[in-house]
């Protein structure tokens, strides 16, 4: 890659790193694993940079790379995953915001990977249904159904207490 393109790439990655790290953290539920995913994603982005920089929506392109690394990682490591059937521990009524986040994070981590990706991209990375469909390479209908299933999974995991607010996912 030419030096000027490399500079451009470095500037972009530096600027977007906080967002990419946060999305990866939300996808993986673990900051260190999230950073591993980002590390792989930005390496792939380097290899695709000439095409990526020409994309209509570079951020969406970067998110696509990130999510695919995450999903690939989940797929390749599937045999090593020990499926946990237990619902995350419910917080006490006096739980703090920190504890709420921990419970939410634990619940989100148990949502199937593609549904989790949809929830994270839509509700935490503020991507539209169309953009999420582009990132995941599926139809908008699939995004909507995955959203619905993902939210249902969250509800099931978190129970029906006052802790859970309402939402349709649409």
């Amino acid at each position: 890659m030419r030096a000027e393109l490399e500079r451009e790439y470095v500037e972009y990655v530096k600027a977007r790193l906080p967002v990419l790290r946060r999305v990866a953290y939300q996808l993986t539920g673990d900051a260190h694993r999230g950073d591993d995913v980002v590390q792989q994603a930005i390496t792939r982005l380097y290899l695709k940079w000439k095409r990526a920089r020409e994309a209509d929506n570079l951020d969406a392109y970067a998110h696509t790379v990130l999510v695919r690394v995450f999903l690939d990682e989940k797929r390749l490591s599937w045999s090593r995953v020990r499926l946990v059937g237990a619902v995350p521990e419910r917080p006490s009524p006096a739980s703090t915001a920190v504890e709420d986040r921990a419970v939410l994070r634990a619940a989100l981590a148990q949502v199937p990977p593609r549904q989790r990706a949809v929830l994270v991209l839509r509700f935490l990375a503020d991507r539209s249904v169309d953009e999420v469909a582009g990132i995941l390479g599926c139809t908008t209908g699939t995004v909507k159904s995955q959203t619905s299933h993902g939210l249902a999974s969250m509800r099931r995991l978190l129970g029906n207490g006052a802790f859970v607010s309402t939402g349709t996912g649409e």
Partner: protein
Amino acid sequence: MERLLDALRDDPLPPSAVDIERALTDGRRSVRRRRMASVVAAGCAVLAVAGGVSVAGLPNAGTPPAVEQSTAAPTPTATPTPSRAPASFDPTRRYATVGWLPAGMTQLHTLTGTDQFSLRADPPAGPKDAPSDPAQDVSYVMLRIVPTGYDIRPLDHGVPFARKEAVTTKWPAETETEPVHGRRARWNTNVAAANGIGLRWEYAPDAWAEVLVQGRAAGPDHRATARRIAESVRYGVDEPIPLPFRVPPLPGTLRPMSVSLHTSTATPRAGWNAGISYGDGKRSANGEWPLAVRAFPRSSQTGGGGAGEPNTTIDGHAARRWDWTDADGGEGLGIYGVKGLYVGLVTDDDTTTRQLPGGLGQLFRGMELYPDPRDWR
């Protein structure tokens, strides 16, 4: 629910462990590898068999392999063990051979380096009947040997690697077992994928070998197969590896660093692929050797099958040139349909190219090619 998820928006993150410089280094290395592969592996279906770029073959391509292939019960064969292992290997010579392989292993690969010697055997690609003995239903077997003081690293996509470091500190997933050739041995379950088993043994003081058997399905125990292969190993063979080409004399800084040879006992005249890499002992920052030469049967004078279209000619042969101007530079030259072969030559940087009088074109003109495996030398 969406509002509930909002609580995760500002979840505090620890300091970043992401390294942009490492991404640049890894990215540049991948670009280099792709470029080099585009020259020396263009249109080469054989390379895909072993799942990596560094594949090769076994002894005397074109003749039946010097191994017994049987489904009979394992019968250890006594072989002398060396009292001392080499400090390094000669990449142009075969250090060891195996005397037995499971039935049906027709694709044979040799990969050498100063710090490693490996033989890998695969069944032919495509659907096949399962052997009557499930323990021999394997996707590949591999022997890896390293010189004194090197560790055998976990497999990386089937490509063997050695690393010089204290060997005895690296036994995370191993259990002691009966000796091999009277030397201490361990089972290694930490192999590349599930259904695999590795048998490691100290073939000479502070020098280790390993046989990997990668099963096709869960269930069968491949330990007997691994042990039988290990017991059939002969060390210190020290035979030249026959190659389908001879490269003219090179500057002293370009010595053979690695040989890869793939042969097929099923299709000996068409199913081979041979390459040799040169350098002064140190890989480039891109992880490559400075000069690589490869040849394999391909009579077509045009692109396709992964080969780019020719953009020049060399002595009347269709050819393709690559000239990379960024980073360290480097050149590639692929010549199509020379005596029924594709020949690829590639340098990793401009410094290496300048060391070659007349460049890659002149290097090609000085090569002797032996398309018939019976003529290899």
